[in-house]
């Protein structure tokens, strides 16, 4: 049995996915990228092998994607995370046409065609507003964990209004609200709204086609996902482990490429 690997080296986390010839996921892992992309890629891949219960030699082709894809000597091929998210998401949810990926450092909206091909995309990579970084900064200001944010947002009865275009503005607004003892859940809901507004603006610019899915770390935040569903007026599919969609796409590219090579 031949296996194929995909490694997604992001600015904050690195994921690795191993699939078999039938495109089934045999194993995956998520690690912190830290200061060295190459080490992170090795570590993630090693842990994915363990999870899959296979040896390194069983993997015949490896694709790398993400910010640090150029630093993965293991890789046989590199593909951008845009194409990987499109392919990975399409594989998981065949009826989707729109992928929203909110990662640590950037967010993307991808319009996906039938075979998982990218038809159009837009990225917000100039500033933190609309990215996971935005929520991370705020979480530390409010002394909550990123994991808690989703639940807290959903429990809020009202929401504070917070700037959606500038993290620096938003931060000073949060400081003011905290100083006035404004309820935490309402601030968090306001923050979720801010990030949702920012990203849904991007979605509308690209256009919604077919069903919608969200991937990336922020997709784990039910608060943001719920607000996004409201804004778009559509249910949003989220895979059980939304962070690995990119790496999955890379693995699928690896499998395709090896077929082509043969």
């Amino acid at each position, binding site marked *: 049995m031949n296996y194929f690997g995909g490694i997604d080296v992001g600015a904050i986390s690195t994921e690795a996915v191993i699939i078999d010839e039938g495109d089934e996921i045999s194993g995956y892992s998520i690690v912190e990228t830290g200061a060295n992309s190459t080490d992170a890629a090795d570590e993630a891949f090693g842990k994915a092998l363990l999870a899959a219960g296979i040896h390194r030699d069983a993997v015949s082709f490896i694709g790398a994607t993400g910010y640090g894809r150029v630093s993965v000597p293991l890789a046989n091929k590199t593909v951008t995370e*845009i194409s990987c998210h499109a392919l990975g998401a399409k594989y998981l949810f065949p009826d989707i046409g729109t992928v929203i990926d909110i990662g640590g450092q950037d967010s993307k909206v991808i319009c996906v065609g039938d075979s998982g091909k*990218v038809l159009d995309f837009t*990225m917000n990579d100039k500033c933190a507003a609309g990215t996971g970084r935005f929520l991370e900064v705020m979480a530390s200001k409010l002394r909550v964990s990123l994991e808690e944010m989703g639940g807290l947002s959903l429990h809020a009865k009202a929401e504070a209004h917070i700037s959606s275009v500038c993290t620096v503005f938003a931060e000073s607004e949060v400081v003011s609200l905290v100083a006035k003892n404004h309820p935490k859940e309402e601030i968090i809901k306001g923050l979720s709204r801010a990030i949702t507004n920012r990203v849904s603006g991007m979605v509308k610019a690209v256009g919604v086609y077919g069903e919608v899915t969200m991937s990336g770390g922020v997709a784990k935040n039910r608060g943001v996902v719920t607000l996004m569903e409201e804004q778009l007026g559509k249910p949003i599919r989220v895979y059980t482990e939304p962070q690995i969609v990119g790496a999955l796409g890379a693995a699928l590219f690896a499998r395709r490429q090896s077929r082509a090579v043969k």
Partner: protein
Amino acid sequence: MTEFHSPSRREYLLKQREVYGRHIFGVFPAQYPRELLWTMNILPVEIWDPPLDLSYASAHLQSYICSIVRLGLEFIVKGKGDILDGFLFPHTCDSIQNLSSIVNNYLKPGKPCYFFYHPKWPYRESSHRFYIEQLRDLAAQLGDQFGALDYSRFKRYVEKGEKVTSVMRDLYSLRASGGLSASNGEFYRTIRQAEFLHPDDLIPLLEKFLEGSQGTPRSETSVILSGVLPNPSEILALLDELKIRVGDDDLLACGRRYLVPPNQTQDPFESLAERYFYMPPCTTRNSPIKERLEHLINKVEGSNAQGVIFWIVKFCEPELFDMPHLIEGLKKKGLPTLVIDVEPNQELTGQLTTRIEAFGEMIR
């Protein structure tokens, strides 16, 4: 720093002054009657993207002003124009308009500043007449400093200008038809020398390049560039690396100004006016969007391109206003587009690289 901005450029300019007695003018973007300057023995040197770190500019310009203007101001404030005999500001946009006044009225660089207003579309009879009068006016003003305009010399230089654009047209045709072997980087490095070379040096350079670049292009996949200028040049190198060639361009610094149709008018003033009004459509002349879209589509079809990259300088209002219409129009034709907005002279970030690579993956 690209070789384009190498110290040899300064040497060249000094030589022009010492050996040929030419005056050197710093000219800001974008549309100006270069043939008129040549006639007055002035060599225009265009100031688009001097390789400077922006430090003083923020004392004079807000953060929401484009970096072409900021770099231009930095250039002046840092005294980099020491070898210049004057400045010329064409009326390109609001920011350049006000830059001209900040320089002339507030900074007072100790060199004469000239200004050239060109009429904006919609064109009427009065626009044509005004353009000619503006040319005469500029000639008279320059005449006060550099001696009266010599009519037959003017005719000669208009012909040289015609020769320059003729070779440019040939180069562009060759590239569009897939017969140019040079890389994207080489192409733009070469033609951007038109921003400062005297036509007597520029024409042989372009002709040599034309002759030497006939051959099979390096890749099948081609795109059209639309925007202001091909900077940072690392993006051209990336396109070369990705085996994507530029088939044609709608860039203000390049195609929009050089691809003037040939004209047969005898009178040099009329000739320059004709060149102005028949140039490719451009936002700095306020050309209608329909014309711009047709122009882009013709470029795509004429070079069998797979997509269009809008290469915009951040904060460039004229370009950004037209873009949504153009993208929509191209989409309707099934053409993929990519928008990149850059700061001139910036480092190529991983994110920008990813965008361009992803576009490459998309169009193949």
